[in-house]
């Protein structure tokens, strides 16, 4: 949905303007001048400052303005009322909407980002007002008392995660512009908290430092943003290295070409389908990449002469990951060949679920990509093997995954 012409863009820019006009009519802050306009305009350049998050998406710095609004005071008097704060966020959202459209972003992504920003920003300022000053006033205290109160911190503790949840829910419902609906990504909370902290820091320093507060807030912000960016880059590098190294057994001709990458993709999807947390999914991914790495040792003629079992290959492979930081991966690789249950015994509860997932994914890939079975035939074979070898729960997850991808054909 890439916009090419100029007119659709201009037309789409009219939407936020109309929306803001209607909104201001409805909420009606005293006047939309001075501080409100300035604060709204600050949001526009901030929307260009993007920070990569752990889940791979990016987060912009716009929410810092929302976080600053309730804290900004001049000579001890708060500048923004709730209505004015809402107006700032509405105006700022509209302005970034127009900027993004002019820059040529797709309409879908502009709408999603704007919705996310408006919803989480407004949730933040409203909840903050509700739990903070308003609550204190209801208790009989005054607003100025509240400023010096522990209650401020408690409020932050509640409101920052709450507005994050609102932002996540919006992304979840609308998708993130590339057609994938992601669940709540709590590992992205660190970037969000960073942005909000720096915003609040700006708000609190504004009274004494005035516009120099920008410098005070910008220093730690740029440092943190740079660190997050470097982290994302290092992660990408690491990912690529493991992928490349995982294909060495294929280069040596011991494994069917592409096996490692396909198994890793399938095992990761299976782990996600089964609802594993992101850390376990990551473990599954790394172990799946490396699950056949032990076959490197097949280069040794001694090995070929004496013979070997799947257990040997698993054991050799786990040597790769023996160091302490990778012990989970080593354990997963070591036990990947084990049947989930032996005759006459209960399933071993210590057998990592990741090992069981990799066993299923690897077998399915061998059946379909190497032996030429159709997905349905492959799945049937796994079902047949699920008395001892393959964990039925994982085979069922595989069926669900394949059905969702319409891979099983009409007979399924």
């Amino acid at each position, binding site marked *: 949905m890439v916009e090419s012409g100029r007119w659709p863009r201009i037309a789409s820019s009219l939407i936020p303007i109309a929306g803001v006009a209607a909104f201001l009519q409805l909420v009606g802050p005293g006047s939309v001048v001075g501080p409100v306009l300035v604060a709204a305009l600050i949001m526009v350049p901030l929307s260009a400052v993007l920070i990569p998050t752990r889940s791979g998406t990016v987060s912009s710095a716009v929410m810092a303005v929302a976080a600053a609004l309730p*804290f900004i005071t001049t000579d001890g008097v708060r500048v923004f009322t709730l209505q004015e704060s809402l107006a700032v966020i509405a105006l700022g959202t509209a302005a970034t909407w127009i900027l993004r459209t002019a820059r040529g972003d797709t309409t879908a992504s502009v709408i999603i980002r704007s919705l996310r920003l408006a919803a989480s920003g407004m949730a933040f300022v409203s909840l903050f007002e509700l739990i903070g000053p308003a609550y204190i006033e209801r208790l009989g205290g005054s607003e100025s008392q509240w*400023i*010096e*109160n*522990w209650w*401020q*911190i408690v409020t*932050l503790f509640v409101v920052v995660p709450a507005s994050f949840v609102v932002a996540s829910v919006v992304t979840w419902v609308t998708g993130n512009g590339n057609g994938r609906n992601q669940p709540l990504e709590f590992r992205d909370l*660190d970037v969000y*908290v*960073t942005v909000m*902290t*720096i915003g*609040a*820091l700006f708000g*609190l*320093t504004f009274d*004494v*430092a*005035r*516009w*120099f507060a920008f*410098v*005070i807030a910008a*220093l*730690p912000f740029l*440092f*943190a943003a740079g*660190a997050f960016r*470097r*982290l994302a880059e*290092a*992660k*990408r*590098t*690491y990912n*690529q*290295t*493991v*992928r*490349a*190294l995982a*294909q*060495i057994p294929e*280069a*040596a001709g011991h494994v069917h070409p592409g096996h490692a990458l396909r198994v890793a993709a399938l095992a990761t999807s299976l782990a996600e389908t089964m609802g594993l947390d992101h850390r376990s999914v990551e473990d599954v991914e790394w172990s799946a990449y490396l699950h056949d790495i032990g076959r*490197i*040792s097949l*280069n*040794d*003629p001694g090995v070929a002469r004496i013979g070997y079992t799947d257990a040997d290959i698993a054991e*050799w492979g786990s*040597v*790769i*990951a*023996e*160091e*302490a*930081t*990778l012990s989970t991966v080593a354990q997963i690789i070591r036990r990947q060949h084990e049947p989930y249950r032996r005759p006459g015994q209960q399933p071993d509860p210590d057998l990592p679920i990741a090992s069981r997932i990799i066993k299923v994914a690897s077998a399915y890939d061998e059946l379909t990509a190497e032996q030429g079975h159709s997905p349905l035939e492959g799945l049937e074979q796994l079902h047949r093997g699920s008395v001892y070898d393959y964990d039925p729960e994982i085979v069922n997850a595989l069926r669900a995954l394949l059905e969702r991808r319409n891979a099983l054909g009409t007979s399924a």
Partner: protein
Amino acid sequence: MKLKHRRIILGAVSVVAGLSVAVWACLLDGESAGSVLFWELWALFALTFGILAYKSVEIDDRLQVSASVMAMFTAGLAFPLSELTDTAAFPMTMLAFVGFVSSGDISGRRVFQMAVNFGQIAFAAFLAGSTADVALSILAEGSGALPDTLNTWLVEGSSAAVFVAVLVAGLAASIVYTISNVAMVRSMVLIGFGRRSLIPWSRTRPAVVAQTALGTIGAMLGAVLAFGPSITLAFLVGTVYVISHLVFTSHARLRATQEAMLRGFVKILEARDLYTRGHTERVAEFALSIGTELGFSSAQLARMRLAALIHDVGKLAVPTPIMRKQGSLTEIEFREMRVATHKVDDLLSQVSFLEPMVQICSGVHPRGTGEDFGQNGHRHNETPTLEQSVLAVADAFDAMTSTRSYRMAMPQSRALAQVESSNDPLFLPEVTAALKQALERLGGSYGPPESAPVREAANRG
């Protein structure tokens, strides 16, 4: 034995120096040093600083950075600006009493490192604090305020002027802190562990940049706290510390995982041939020494190191009989080996970041296991890049100076002469010269530095 005695003396000297600096800082500060009025503030900062220093992380090779620098500079600026103390040197030096313990030193019972760290941190903190004091008083005087009443300046002066002053003073103090820290670590490693242990300390730029930035940010936060002290502000400042710490930690963890993975591959590779054990690590160390001698940047050195670590990984795809063969390979075997290593090179060069490294390696590879150096022609006739040459020289030098299945190790001097006189186009003259210099600088000994103890003598702050 000699080095051990030196270490004991050095540790004792360091502790005494640290203590005397601390006493001096107390005396400088006059009567307010005895004040126990704000003990809870002191305790809060000591606790924050101590925890962050205890949890310091290794961000780059053997260099440790921790968010505790921020806390130190926050205290250093917040205390004098809010008139809790007279000088910045006093609170900063005092924090050294809690900053010298790190989890690694305690679990490893490394008394020497802790003793040295204490003196080093106290001294660097004192220098940095004094720098901040001098800078602040000059700037305050310049703006017309009385030099000894920073607080009046804060209250009555223009806030922008004060913040600019704090920015300048904080930056100057962090630069002094970082540079004196690195200088002290270098000289102490030199005295306590010998010259060749110094290699890792030649690449300090990433840590210097990070620490300077952290110090300056910490100083600004200190000024903010002095201006409008509030619980919320303190909480936000604490959050900034925690976030910085978390980012460092995840970076360090990622790096450690990647290193561990590569080491695993190298281990499998070397397990196939007993004679090449340790070869990869040694080549990496040689390449780094040569690169340092040639004035490579830290990014270049990091790339060099990774290139050295992966330079033989292609052999994993080579059938073992060919790898273990003694003497020259036949034409067919040689081709087989080249096909296998090229396949792996192709795999690795798909990785955008590894591509330059594969290019470094690819000029070196066809010489095979390094045994028949100087005989197998390499496929490039054009001049190799500097990095390719460094790797080739390091590889050949280590191959010659270590024992192989069919010959004993060559003495270092003969190997060096052979590398110098070789007409192999891969051995650029400036690289062989750098190798010679590096060997001389290492004091005639060679091999990887004893990395385990040195790693822990890290500069924390």
